[in-house]
């Protein structure tokens, strides 16, 4: 496929240097491309292929990138492991490699939107994403958008959004890379990738296979004497490939496309005390095609794509498909005002084991930035109207502002504030599942506000960045499934008030060949249920289940030359097991250690080596009750590249 694409594209390309023209466009939007002559060798500066910047209209909001170094440590593992260990976010994990759902700012699993290269990939039937089957390595970049993002991203983004992106580069020539991750309990993650790029075209193919037996020892609390046993029926097998392609048609036109096939077969780890032998197979096909036209200060983007998911649970097969057509215009009207206007059309189909449903969704969106006082005071205004199946979802505006108080060289203090509305369209299962689906459901809706301050300090080789945000959120018409006689049915019944604090600190100091990095996150979340569902229900005023009030994470690394070592710690506070807060799981903290040789040569091959010990103290813990997790375990990462 790679060869075919290469011949197809490269064989017909005129050998024209587009660098200058591309560079002209790139002053504010993308980096320049230029040619450097060194003797007789033509060296190309590596240039990242353009993609829509996700954080352009997010003044007043928090958007964070996951450090790419962190991605390399987690090669082949689920994104859930990375987010749990390296961020302040909490994921409800049903076991290693098992279902993992994200909670952002105290909302539920379906209250965060997940995008791959700009396409929403939350399952339309389940309304959420299983983060354990998103393998690190199948994407290049992870961005986290904290807080209400309905106006920017559409349905589901009540607590936040996660963006997974492909980052191709031009001007790299041929590149081959092999990544292996060998670990305890039968872990072997293997990824191979080959890419070629020049000034105009970039292609890359990745294939991967990730397996784990997950036969870790655990204490079986269900048996007399609570014997230590090996976990059974928790094996994990994942295979897939990605095919990425970018082509600079002319100086003002770019096409990029990505295809991702991912399949995962899992033995579902039974809860302690159960002897279930469930088997789940997930198959996902995602494809996106972007066309960019750079016309002056206008960028036109036409995007199309599809997301097809198949979930087979034992013999029950469920299929969903989403087809997208998106068009928008991003326009820097003048140095003060930028604007983005667009429309997104989606056709959604669900062929589930108990029903078939399909619907059309149309979204109109408008964003604008206003940069005042030489960019000391910046505003973003976002508006979105979502229509599904002829129903108008709540109109969602958001207004945010950043104010740089002391824009000096060494330190900068910035205040940010944002107010937003968001929504979540009821899932297909919520509305159409037979029996029990409720077609009268309303979209869940939320209002939120946040106020934060960030402090950045630079002195020589020392860089410090701190940020503190306080938020409040009110979610109404929260959907829950309740038993109704002999069946369960969803209702818009719950009202929830969330508030919290998010603190992050990043520090970096470099002296000679020494390199010190420190990163820390602390989240305090109070997610309060405001509704009693019946006269006997006493859960109003209580914390939502499996929503820890406290999560702390810290990472410290020391590098010297090609060597780097790190220690990471994350602490998850106690979690109530049910909405009435009667029982709770104890808090736990895990230490991880790692050592890495960043780069060395084996003949003509570049190599990197990493060794990690996770859960160093062999702490026995459960994220969810009676769902055991592994004790101390080891990983060896080996990377070869040509």
């Amino acid at each position: 496929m790679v060869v075919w694409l290469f011949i197809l594209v490269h064989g017909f390309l005129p050998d024209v240097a587009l660098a200058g023209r591309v560079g002209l466009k790139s002053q504010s939007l993308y980096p320049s491309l230029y040619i450097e002559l060194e003797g007789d060798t033509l060296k190309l500066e590596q240039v990242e292929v353009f993609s829509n910047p996700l954080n352009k209209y997010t003044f007043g909001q928090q958007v964070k990138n996951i450090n790419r170094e962190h991605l390399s440590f987690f090669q082949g593992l689920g994104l859930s492991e990375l987010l749990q260990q390296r961020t302040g976010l909490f994921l409800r994990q049903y076991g290693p490699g098992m279902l993992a759902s994200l909670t952002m700012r105290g909302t539920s699993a379906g209250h965060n939107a997940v995008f791959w290269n700009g396409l929403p990939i939350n399952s339309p039937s389940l309304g959420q994403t299983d983060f354990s089957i998103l393998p690190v390595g199948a994407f290049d970049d992870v961005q986290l958008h904290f807080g209400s993002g309905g106006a920017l991203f559409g349905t589901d983004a009540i607590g936040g959004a996660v963006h997974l992106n492909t980052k191709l580069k031009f001007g790299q020539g041929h590149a081959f890379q092999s990544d292996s991750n060998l670990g305890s309990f039968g872990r072997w993650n293997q990824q191979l990738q080959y890419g070629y790029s020049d000034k105009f075209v970039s292609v890359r193919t990745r294939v991967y296979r990730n397996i784990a037996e997950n036969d870790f020892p655990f204490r079986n609390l269900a048996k007399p004497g609570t014997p230590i046993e090996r976990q059974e029926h928790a094996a994990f097998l994942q295979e897939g490939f990605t095919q990425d392609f970018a082509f600079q048609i002319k100086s003002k036109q770019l096409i990029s496309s990505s295809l991702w096939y991912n399949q995962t077969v899992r033995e579902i780890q039974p809860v302690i005390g159960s002897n279930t032998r469930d088997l789940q197979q997930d198959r996902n096909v995602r494809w996106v095609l972007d066309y960019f036209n750079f016309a002056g200060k206008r960028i036109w983007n036409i995007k199309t794509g599809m997301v097809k998911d198949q979930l087979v649970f034992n013999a029950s097969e469920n299929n969903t498909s989403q087809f997208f057509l998106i068009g928008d215009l991003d326009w820097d009207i003048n140095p003060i005002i930028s604007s983005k206007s667009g429309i997104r059309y989606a056709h959604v189909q669900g062929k589930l084991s108990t029903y078939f449903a399909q619907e059309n969704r149309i979204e109109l969106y408008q964003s604008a930035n206003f940069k005042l006082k030489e960019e000391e005071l910046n505003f973003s205004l976002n508006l979105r109207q979502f229509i599904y199946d002829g129903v108008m979802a709540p109109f969602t505006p958001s207004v945010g502002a950043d104010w740089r108080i002391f824009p000096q060289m060494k330190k900068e203090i910035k205040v940010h504030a944002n107010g937003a509305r968001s929504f979540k369209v009821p899932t297909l299962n919520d509305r159409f599942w037979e029996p029990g689906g409720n077609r009268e459901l309303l979209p869940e809706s939320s209002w939120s506000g946040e106020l934060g301050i960030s402090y950045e300090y630079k002195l020589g080789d020392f860089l410090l960045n701190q940020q503190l945000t306080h938020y409040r959120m009110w979610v109404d018409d929260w959907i829950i499934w309740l038993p109704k006689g002999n069946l369960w049915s969803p209702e818009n019944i719950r009202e929830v008030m969330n508030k919290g604090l998010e603190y992050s600190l990043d520090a970096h100091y470099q002296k000679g060949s020494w390199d010190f990095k420190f990163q820390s996150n602390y989240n305090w979340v109070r997610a309060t249920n405001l509704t009693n569902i019946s006269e006997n229900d006493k859960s109003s005023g209580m914390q939502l289940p499996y929503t820890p009030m406290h999560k702390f994470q810290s990472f410290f690394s020391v590098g010297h030359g090609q060597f780097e070592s790190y220690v990471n710690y994350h602490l998850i506070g106690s979690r109530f097991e049910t909405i009435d807060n009667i029982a709770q799981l104890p808090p736990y903290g895990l230490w991880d250690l790692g050592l890495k040789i960043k780069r060395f040569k084996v003949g003509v091959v570049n190599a990197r080596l990493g060794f990690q010990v996770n859960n160093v103290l062999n702490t026995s813990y459960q994220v969810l009750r009676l769902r055991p997790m592994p004790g101390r375990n080891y990983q060896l990462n080996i990377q070869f590249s040509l």
Partner: protein
Amino acid sequence: MKKISNLGTAIILLLSLFSCMEEGSQMPAGEFERGILILNEGAFGANDGEVYHYDPNLGTIKTNIFESKNGRPFAGLLQDLVASEGRLYLIANTGKVEVVDPKDFANRGAVTSGLDISRSLVTANQKIYISDWGPYDANFNSPNSYIAVVNQLDGGSVNKKIAVSSRPEGMFVEGNQLLIACSAAKKLDVVSLNTEQLLKSVDILGRPSRFFESGGRLYLYARDGGNVYFHEINRSSGDIAKTVKVNLPLSTSNFALTDNGEVLIITSTGWPDYNDAVARVDINDGQVLNSSVYTGSGLYGIGFHKERSEIYLTDNNGFQGNGTVIILDREGIQKKTFVAGRGPSGFKFNLN
């Protein structure tokens, strides 16, 4: 004088001691043999079933008595609680049976493997017989249901499986016969306890669930969409001797026998209102005496305390958190409520 006095004191003390020892041979009832045990089924996927104890005289509640005594969670969905042979059997439909001392809930043993979806249990001939749906097939049917036989009363491994009709529930030992209510098959199966072979399967009206005795007669409770059936069993042949049909739509499998030949049955209106109620029915003629002794929503378990003449109901509170126990007088007037465990589903009154 002083020595005589001391001797007298010693004799009195000894007499007192012997007196106490004689009384001690009566073996006073254990803490949990008096009062009310509340079965909390637990929530699907959470395996948080447990047993609570309620003392109706003092109004005190002891929570999680299995875990409190044994230092580990029950870790299962509690389907049934059976007192037999001086033991209390906790049956989890997640494929486990725990055997505890009814006095204090100290664990005596367990059956932890070889079961699939266990439902109920009886003992006979120093053996345990466990009804089990068997594994689901691809369409979530139960074609491989069985009775598991364990040769020790304190549990252990499953020694034999007797294939029976689909989805066995309640059982009753009558002589050398084991009667089994098979709900999905709508059959009454009869197994010989001598040969441990299925003797016959009898078709019956409705989906059967449990056996009960009233007025010296043995009945099997069954129901369908419009009716409840009290099938009177011929104890010698195992056949249906007589059926009392009760016109009671939307009945559930949850019922309780009162002290005067009446049965209390939970009903649910279903979609769209889902209003639940308790109906009072006469066993002998099938008359619905009162279709709404009590009304509510989320009614999940029911019992009748004969000594106190009280109806005990449970509300599962949507399984979102712990459930509620509602105590009514026999006319259905609410007397008290208190919080139980997750999904409270039934009661055991005064084991001793």
